[in-house]
């Protein structure tokens, strides 16, 4: 047995087998237990060292050869594996209450395994192809059964596919730079190819037009899962570039480019979010803003950038999950999520409504909520570098918060004499309660995720020091 077999091939096989199970609850239960097992295994079992349990001794090897190349998962990757599979488990729990377990879980597990493979493959540049395969896996998830694929889905596939040639070609140029580090032409070419590749993959300004379009077309919870999984792994992939190539890490222009792109995404995303009339589109813009914050954190790589980048991960996962769960509950009963068609919803769907508002405010960096500590750290560090930049970033977040107030105003506008009557099911109420509670607890005690922060940087040989 080896680590890639356990955390890559086994989940793929499990996902395939789950396609055969017809019972929603059984699929959710098996998937949650399986991902819990993978999370605990990642947290507890050392890789490449002998482990003795009673009279039984075994060693989990770190690599698996495949077609002349290798998939490698070392002990340094364990925290990342725990994060990915632990978060997947949390994402899978509410699927039964939304009746989408059979649709999301098998493919979701396959996508997770492919994205783990993307970070395990050596040479790591081939990750672009595995990410593209995961994108193609997500197409059946993102298309609404019986409906023509929308513009958002088509643009999503186009932009993600266009990233592949740029990243693969940049890999070839980077190999040339390693052999000839003084060649400025090669460095410029590599930077252009890499920049374009990641701009397509991460939906960096101006390539993010597909996000709000897709948000409008797709089931919100599935969308939340894909919007969490793909950018997270792509950002880690980007970090591995910075970690691997010293010239890239030490280029002063990198920080400038990252902070400019991040600030542009946060500001433009915030301004556009406040003018949206569709609830799911607002979530789409929040995803753009969050990617912008991650880029800003990476631009501060000399001063706590990596810590802030990792600090952003857990609150983002939680907020996106609660936000998309709330949206999915509303959409199940009212397919039209335009602002003018949700009037009075706070009285009929109070739990889901509050979930939308709280997660929106949390991602806008509202104090006491989960997103605040990380966002505050970004603002503070940015303000030390450039006050105007910090102002525009803060303005973007402020606009996102304003969009939450706008949604609240629409949802609270009930006709006279309307009664309070919660329509959510018991399981949905429990899940949303837990979500709110977690948002407040993470806002008040951000150091609770400290064990993960201390272990995750080990993934990066140079950046993590």
């Amino acid at each position, binding site marked *: 047995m080896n680590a890639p077999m356990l955390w890559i091939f086994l989940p793929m096989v499990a996902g395939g087998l789950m396609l055969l199970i017809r019972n929603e609850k059984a699929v959710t239960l098996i998937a949650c237990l399986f991902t819990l097992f993978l999370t605990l295994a990642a947290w507890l079992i050392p890789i490449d060292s002998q482990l003795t349990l009673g009279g039984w001794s075994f060693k989990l090897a770190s690599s698996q050869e*495949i*077609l*002349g*190349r290798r998939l490698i998962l070392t002990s340094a990757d364990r925290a990342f594996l725990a994060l990915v599979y632990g978060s997947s488990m949390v994402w899978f729990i509410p699927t039964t209450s939304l009746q989408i377990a059979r649709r999301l879980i098998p493919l979701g597990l396959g996508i997770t395994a492919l994205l783990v493979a993307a970070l395990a*493959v050596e040479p790591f540049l*081939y990750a672009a*192809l*595995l990410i*593209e*395969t995961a994108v*193609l*896996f997500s*197409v*059946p998830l993102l*298309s609404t*059964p*019986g*409906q*023509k*694929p929308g*513009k958002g889905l*088509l643009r999503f*596939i*186009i932009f993600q*596919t*266009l990233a*592949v*040639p740029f990243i*693969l*070609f940049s890999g*070839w140029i980077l190999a040339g730079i390693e052999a000839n580090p003084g060649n400025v032409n090669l460095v410029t070419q590599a930077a252009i190819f890499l920049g374009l590749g990641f701009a397509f993959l991460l939906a960096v300004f101006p390539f993010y037009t597909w996000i709000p379009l897709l948000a409008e077309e797709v089931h919100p919870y599935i969308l939340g899962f894909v919007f969490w999984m793909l950018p997270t792994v792509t950002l880690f992939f980007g970090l591995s570039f910075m970690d691997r190539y010293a010239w890239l890490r030490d280029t002063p222009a990198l920080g400038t480019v990252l902070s400019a792109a991040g600030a542009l995404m946060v500001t433009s995303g915030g301004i556009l979010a406040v003018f949206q009339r569709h609830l799911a589109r607002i979530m789409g813009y929040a995803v753009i803003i969050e990617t912008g914050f991650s880029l800003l954190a990476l631009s501060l790589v000399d001063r706590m950038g990596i810590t802030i980048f990792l600090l952003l991960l857990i609150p983002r996962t939680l907020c996106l999950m609660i936000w998309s769960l709330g949206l999915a509950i509303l959409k199940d009963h009212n397919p039209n999520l335009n602002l003018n068609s949700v009037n009075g919803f706070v009285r009929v769907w109070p739990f889901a409504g509050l979930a939308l508002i709280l997660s929106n405010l949390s991602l806008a960096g509202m104090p006491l909520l989960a997103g605040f500590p990380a966002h505050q750290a970004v603002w503070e560090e940015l303000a030390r570098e450039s006050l105007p930049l910090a102002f525009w970033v803060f303005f973007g977040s402020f606009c996102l918060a304003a969009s939450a107030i706008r949604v609240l105003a629409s949802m609270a506008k009930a006709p006279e004499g309307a009664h309070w009557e919660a329509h959510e099911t018991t399981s949905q109420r429990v899940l949303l309660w837990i979500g709110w509670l977690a948002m407040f607890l993470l806002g008040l005690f951000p150091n609770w995720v400290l064990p993960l922060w201390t272990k995750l940087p080990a993934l990066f040989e140079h950046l993590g020091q």
Partner: protein
Amino acid sequence: MAETINWAALLLTIMASVGLLLSRDWHWRIGFLATQYLCAFFMLQTHWPISMAASKLVAGWMACVVLGIARLNSEKRGEEDLSIPQGRLFHLLISFIILVVTFAVSLRVTTWLGISLPIAWGSLVLMGLGLLQLGITLDPFRVVIGLLTILCGFEILYATVESSILVTALLAVVNLGLALTGAFFLITVEEERI
């Protein structure tokens, strides 16, 4: 001899990719796409062993078969072209401009990568016309064909610098995945029509 084959493949590539842009019948489109993969095979075999080049041909033709079967099963009456604008003359003119631009770029690429002109030009023509196809259509079938064309062009160029079996296999998976995505789109469109 290899150079002659490459020039012939280039000529056929230009004809097929322009034909792909101009044709409104899906049978022709699949035929042109298959021809592109045949040309790619001839160009690839100058840098790769014939068995590896053949794997590209097989994967490409499989993609054509997948798309063809899906199209056959979901044939729409009174369709067709959703491209904007629809004029063939416009498409021909813009294709000509792309041919000229890619020729100019390929002269630099030949020096940069140390490859022959027909290979550089052929791959850039495919990428350029594939991009054009993506830019002027909203039809999922044409979008997928456009993406396959771009990847086909990229694979020719990338083969001159990388010969890993894993990359070849993964690119074949991506090609087939795109074809399956196209087939999936065609089937969902047909379900919607019913």
